């Protein structure tokens, strides 16, 4: 190790410079917090999004530090806001976010049953009132009456609260009891009402004439296929020789309920085709029905309010030439939504596919053109009467559709 003095000093200088540069840079980066970030990434953030997502966290921090608010910030509400905002950015008209209680109601809506008291509630400018009672319901047995004004539920003031939040207070697990205070004729009455399983019917039926059975599907829930089977059996027992299916104003619901309904009208085949972003196509089959009903002549009433799952049923009937659609062009909702429950009980709903009719026709924005066009209900009924009489070889005097209860703006609790 005998180097000249000059070489020694050069070497020393070089080492010193290197040490200074490395130590300085390391200190700076660690101090800045960049190394830890590089090592760990942002919390839960997909690595590909980490950089892009920084402004979001910066905005969050600025709000935490600066925002004027009487209440402490609610990180859960901010998270839900972020999810809603992200969904809005997709420009998917059917996308939406539901908080855990909203999602529970959504689920109960699709299931068609829930724990409740069997009262229909409505709301006007004075607040919430009992619009009607389901026969045999616990609300009826407890003595609740139509017209009662709901003051408190479980000791919570109702006031001008919206129907969904009141609904959530009244519904609950079975068995349990809910305490209601209502106002009737100036007096305050108090009730303890047991919660039982309440079923919201999605199918209504009756005989429309001596030989024509009438079935109306209001929307598609987990109970629809079963209710539809009951309807067909009862109509068959009443000696129906032709059938009128009413899908007017049916905005859909649970799409997976449609094949179960079709199974009772059409033999085999596919109910609809689903096409995903990737181009992958799934054919959804019509399940094999345990009991094949008699193939009665069929006509289907549709209108511009017939959408989604109702269009799936109507389209298959049309493609398989099971019977004519009568009315006006249907809504044309040919996009399928998926409902995804998140771990904390909230949910998102997004469009996951578009669907095509069994023969591969698109529906979105197009709708279904009825075989028999009718501009109004009277015209539609007379076309249906004529068609069914011909097909069944029977004489139909006139079709009387039952006056069915209108549930618009009312909620069953």
């Amino acid at each position: 190790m005998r180097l000249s003095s000059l070489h020694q000093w050069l070497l020393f200088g070089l080492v010193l410079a290197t040490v200074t540069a490395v130590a300085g840079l390391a200190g700076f980066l660690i101090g800045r917090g960049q190394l830890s970030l590089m090592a760990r990434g942002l919390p839960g953030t997909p690595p590909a999004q980490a950089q892009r997502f920084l402004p979001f966290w910066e905005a969050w921090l600025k709000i935490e530090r600066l925002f004027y608010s009487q209440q402490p910030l609610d990180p859960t509400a901010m998270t839900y806001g972020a999810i809603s905002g992200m969904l809005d950015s997709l420009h998917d008209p059917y996308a939406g976010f539901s908080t855990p209680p909203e999602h529970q109601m959504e689920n109960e809506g699709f299931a068609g049953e829930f724990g409740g008291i069997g009262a229909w509630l409505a709301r006007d400018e004075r607040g919430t009132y009992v619009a009607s009672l389901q026969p045999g319901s616990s609300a009826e047995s407890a003595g609740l009456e139509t017209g009662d004004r709901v003051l408190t539920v479980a000791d919570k003031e109702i006031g001008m609260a919206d129907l969904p939040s009141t609904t959530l207070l009244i519904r609950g697990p079975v068995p349990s009891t809910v305490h209601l205070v209502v106002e009737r004729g100036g007096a305050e009455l108090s009730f303890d009402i047991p919660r039982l399983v309440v079923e919201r019917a999605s199918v209504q039926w009756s005989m429309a004439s001596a030989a024509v059975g009438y079935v109306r599907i209001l929307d598609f829930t987990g109970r629809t296929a079963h209710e539809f089977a009951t309807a067909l059996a009862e109509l068959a027992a009443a000696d129906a020789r032709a059938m009128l299916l009413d899908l007017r104003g049916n905005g859909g619901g649970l799409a997976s309920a449609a094949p179960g309904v079709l199974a009772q009208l059409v033999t085999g085949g596919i109910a609809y085709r689903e096409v995903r972003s990737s181009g992958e196509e799934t054919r959804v089959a019509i399940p094999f029905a345990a009991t094949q009903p008699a193939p009665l002549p069929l006509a289907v009433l549709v209108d511009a309010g017939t959408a989604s799952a109702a269009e799936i049923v109507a389209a298959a009937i049309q493609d398989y030439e099971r019977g004519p659609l009568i009315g006006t062009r249907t809504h044309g909702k040919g996009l399928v939504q998926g409902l995804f429950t998140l771990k904390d009980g909230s949910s998102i709903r997004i469009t996951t596919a578009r669907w095509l009719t069994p023969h591969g026709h698109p529906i979105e924005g197009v709708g279904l053109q009825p075989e028999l066009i009718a501009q109004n209900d009277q015209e539609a009924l007379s076309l249906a009467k004529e068609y069914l009489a011909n097909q069944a070889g029977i004489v139909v005097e006139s079709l009387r559709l039952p006056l069915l209860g209108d549930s618009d703006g009312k909620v069953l609790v």
Partner: protein
Amino acid sequence: MSSCRRYALIALLLCLVGTAVFVAGFGLGRYVFPSSDSRAWQVASEQRQQFSPFWEAWRIIEDEYYTEQPLDYQAMTYGAARGMVASLGDPHTAFLTPEEADMFSQDLSGTFGGIGVTITPTDDGFVQVVKLIPGGPAEKTVLQPGDVVLAVDGTSIRGMSQNEAIALIRGEVGTQVTLRVRHEGQEMDLTLTRAIIAIPVTERKMLDNNIAYLYVGEFNARAADLVKTDLTDLLKHEPRGLILDLRGDPGGYLHIVEQVADEFLPEGVLVIERSSTGAESRRNTTASGLAESIPLVVLVDGGSASASEILAGAVQDRGRGVLIGEQTYGKGSVQVTERLSDRSAVAVTIRRWFTPADRAIDGKGLTPDIVVEYTEEDAKAGRDPQLDRAIKYLMENTAQ
């Protein structure tokens, strides 16, 4: 000295230097140039836990969403930020994309590369020229108020928001923009060179009976200087009174209204600010203004907001003058706009403000001392009953 001891000494020296430089670098990194990344990282772990549903939703969208275009992650991120901010329920706290943030700051600084028109949306989804700004590029063309802009540089603006249309029309100073316009029932293309547009912030004039009139349209960066110039000029006429017109003035910078208020108000409180932590601060005016004693009427209406209400509220509470017109807007909060690392921004409500007499402005606004309405018929007939009332007031209450 043995060479062994010498090397040990050198090694020790290197260690010391290395440590010192490391500490210096750490300090510099931590306290002088902290990265926004590291601050973002420090979001409390509890909140990160609560945020996990978001990433669940994100992944579901990635896997399941039906779309013909690829996912726009940038839009999703900005959408999330917008939604998060919206959840606070404060209409004045907002997230701005970089483009929106640029436009926002351009508006407040009073200059931008544009063509010198103000526009309004039409019923059929286009925009219509409302006013030509004197000296602007548009004034030198056939463009007239009422003309409809159909497309910008070949892009139809149908269905765009007004802000999107503005973003297309504006651009770098000196560049050209071609507008497809409907002018007197005919469609034509006009090419204009974008220029710096001086928004007329103030307007001064001497009315009959030796009454001075000063309009302030916005408290932007140039407003304080312009008001000073205008006042100096108006006061040369030794007017018997002054009408300060703040109608339609949406506000602007706080430090600017402070300077403007200083010209009209003697020493005293201008506004009391309170922050969410309960901290309270007072902003004061000093005794050195140009127009601290001249009889004063302030015209206000439902469009007078924010900074305008600070000034009008102080004038009213301190008895400096009377307010004439209609109930003011009632925006009693203060925002700061903070840029984020990618040049997007958040405007955050940081404080609420109260008049010198401790009246909250937020949501309520100020009630004028003399309420005078300005109806649509007045507008059509070219009448200004509020200004007329102000003149009448000054005539009755001042001596010539």
